[in-house]
């Protein structure tokens, strides 16, 4: 987290017990002040954690990134039973036409000659209706899929109004303290903000698109989620997400680093990590496919 602090001294235990979520905290000038508890902590001169991954340092070869994104999309599609939006990985990123409960095998083979027009999802067929299933997950996915497609398309065209409209349909959507839709938006926004210049064909930065997403979300979701999204739009992300973005740039053969980073991200929260990864992969797709909206990897 970009605004977290760990202290080693046990002597401060007393005052910290009064802390409640929502209290204002002031950080700056080497100090942390919590007025509600009359607490002022001087920070050591230790090097602060940098939440913005150093993407400029890597050589962002499009082919390497595309290949890694392809691998991760499949990996994520296999995780759909966990809840959240991971179930959309197949239809959204890999051109699958139907959602399946276990998503182990795509209903059609990875066929690069498949025509874009055939990619229409049919959710009604697929969802399990065994007792105790989360029927609402199907509903969640049904609501999110078109919005995510629209988001990617609008981003490619740099259509701010379209981005805002799509974000309005995703911010605050889904279970969790950071709703699934927000986590996906965060992954998407981080990629757009950090890699917009490196990976798009016109090499223009796209932070304004990320900022628009965060601004749209602000009134529509929990305070925590809105804050995290605002940071993501500045390229400031949780460590596992930052590590994954950097792992994308590892040379093509080094899959272990990539999958280890992915594993760490996917285990974040209940579904936050999976949802964020979906957003990351969608963002990469949006940056790379400037021409065709419904391209598959």
């Amino acid at each position, binding site marked *: 987290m970009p605004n977290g602090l*760990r202290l*080693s001294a*046990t002597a401060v*235990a007393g005052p910290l017990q009064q802390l409640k*979520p*929502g209290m204002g905290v002031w950080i700056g000038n080497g100090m942390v002040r919590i007025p509600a508890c009359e607490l002022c902590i001087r920070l050591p001169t230790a090097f602060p954690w940098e939440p913005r991954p150093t993407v400029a340092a890597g050589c962002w070869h499009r082919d390497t990134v595309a290949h890694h994104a392809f691998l991760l999309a499949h990996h994520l599609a296999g995780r759909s039973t966990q*809840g959240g939006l991971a179930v959309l990985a197949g239809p959204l990123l890999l051109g699958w036409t139907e959602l399946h409960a276990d998503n182990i095998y795509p209903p059609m083979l990875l066929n690069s000659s498949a025509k874009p027009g055939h990619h229409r999802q049919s959710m009604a067929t697929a969802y399990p209706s065994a007792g*105790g299933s*989360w*029927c*609402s997950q199907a*509903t*969640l996915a*049904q*609501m999110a899929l078109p919005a995510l497609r629209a988001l990617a398309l609008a981003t490619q065209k740099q259509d701010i109004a379209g981005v805002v409209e799509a974000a309005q*349909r*995703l*911010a*605050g*959507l*889904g*279970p*969790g*303290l*950071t*709703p699934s*839709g927000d986590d996906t938006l965060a992954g998407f926004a981080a990629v757009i903000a950090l890699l917009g210049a490196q990976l798009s064909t016109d090499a223009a930065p796209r932070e304004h698109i990320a900022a628009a997403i965060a601004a749209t979300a602000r*009134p*529509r*979701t*929990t*305070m*925590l989620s809105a804050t995290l999204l605002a940071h993501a739009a500045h390229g400031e992300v949780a460590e596992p997400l930052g590590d994954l973005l950097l792992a994308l740039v590892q040379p093509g053969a*080094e899959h*272990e*680093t990539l999958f*280890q980073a992915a594993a760490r991200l996917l285990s974040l*929260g*209940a*579904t*936050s990590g999976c949802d964020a990864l979906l957003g990351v992969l969608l963002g990469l797709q949006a940056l790379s496919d400037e021409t065709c909206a419904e391209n598959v990897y």
Partner: protein
Amino acid sequence: MVVRALLQRNAYYDSITLMAVAQAARDLPGVEDAGAVMATELNCELLRNAGLFPDAFLAEQDTPPGPSDLLIVVRAIDEMHAAIALAIAEERLATRESPAVAAPPETIVPRSLEAAIRRDPDANLAVISVAGEHAWLEAEQALRLGLHVFLFSDNVPIQREQALKTLAIQRGLLLMGPDCGTAIINGVGLGFANVVPRGPIGIAGASGTGIQQLTCLIAAAGMGISQAIGTGGRDLSEAIGGSMMRRALELLADDSQTAVIVLVSKPPADLVAREILRIVAQIAKPVVAVFPGADPYRFAAIAGSGRMARTLTEGAALAIALAGGDPARVPGWEIVNSDAASEAITSRARFHSMAEPHLAVECMQVTLSQRYVRALYSGGTLCDEAMLLLSERIGPIASNIPLYPNWALAPGETFRGHTALDLGADEFTQGRPHPMIDPTLRLHYLARAAEDPETAVILLDIVLGFVAHQNPAAVYAPAIAQARTTAAAAGRMLSVIVSLCGTEGDPQRFSTQCAALEAAGALVFASNAAAALAAASIIEANGQ
């Protein structure tokens, strides 16, 4: 169907809690669906689409719910089931708020060191293995709370290690580490440890696999271990000066269960060695010191009353003899002993004296092109020991941890003549598990060594015990068989020697692993020194 809901304003529960609450509600009989979501506009729409929106309930509220409010909704077969579900959901949330009150203690994982100690005030040891840059913080906290520390993590900055060890000594506590792979305290193994009986021999070690080899050989010879105290790999460096080793020696000297002490480490700096051996001289009990990989004459002058052993096998044998046991029972003792005793004996006579009939067969069939030994080690100390013995007999051994700087492998070079690789070294373990846990990298090198027509012998260590791979033979035996078959098809006899470090008591069982490896055609030795000498013999015999 009935839809009922409850609303909590300004709620703050983590996602996993919310998910668990919703799932718990859904699992109840009579409940068709349930949700626990923050009341954002879209979630309200979601609930509506799922048939879960509590219109009537929300209409009764003073103000409509907002994004920071929690809405729990259930759809059940009737009022009663819905009410029960909501009550259970609410209770679950309440227990999350004050876990100490409601939920049974064993289900709650403490989130801090202090909480863990409150739960179990008798705990006196912290085992820490988080990433090095943060591990020192945890270790410091543990020491300040009065706990001894086993610090498995490496990459702890040296200044931190100095500060931590100073603090530990001040407080009379043990800091085993950083980069401490093994310890056995009061019969309990920490880190990579083998199952060995209790007994009169105590070990103080700055080398994890060094400790493991010693404990296994001692156990095989029928004796046991009182304590094995790890000090961390850097303890005998100049910067640290052996502070924890000193403490470990003091403790063992005072311990009534310990009759003989063995000290093991990678070769220390001269200054530190001098200081440690000076302390050793003052200990009344017999002390054996082993620095595998060191030139045996280097420390002879300053050894004083400490007995210097050249190899771990000799160290184990010496310790056993001093404790009143029979050194000949140490595996590999005969081989190592005869090697040490011999001076100008020809290699052919040497290997005949090893009484290993299948070894003789292996020597006979090696082709002329095969000239080199390729050693693939997971334990650095075992690699050092092997390199010392091999180099004495067959010449320079190229390595990523060379005994001499000019024996270093060039970047990008895999093998160069006789080669010994420490695959547990940093450059091989970035972003991947250690070879003692994950065999992938070693299998890769095994295949490459087997393909190379210049390879005559492949030597590798397999370490058993807790934390190590649960069945290494299942992975290595097929690979070894495959390697030998491939070589045979090309007209080459490829010898594979395994230095197997483990005991019958280990989860993997020494005998089971040994049998599987031998069935695949490997020559298995429990003594790493004997394994290295066997490899040398094959090379020498081929040379004649």
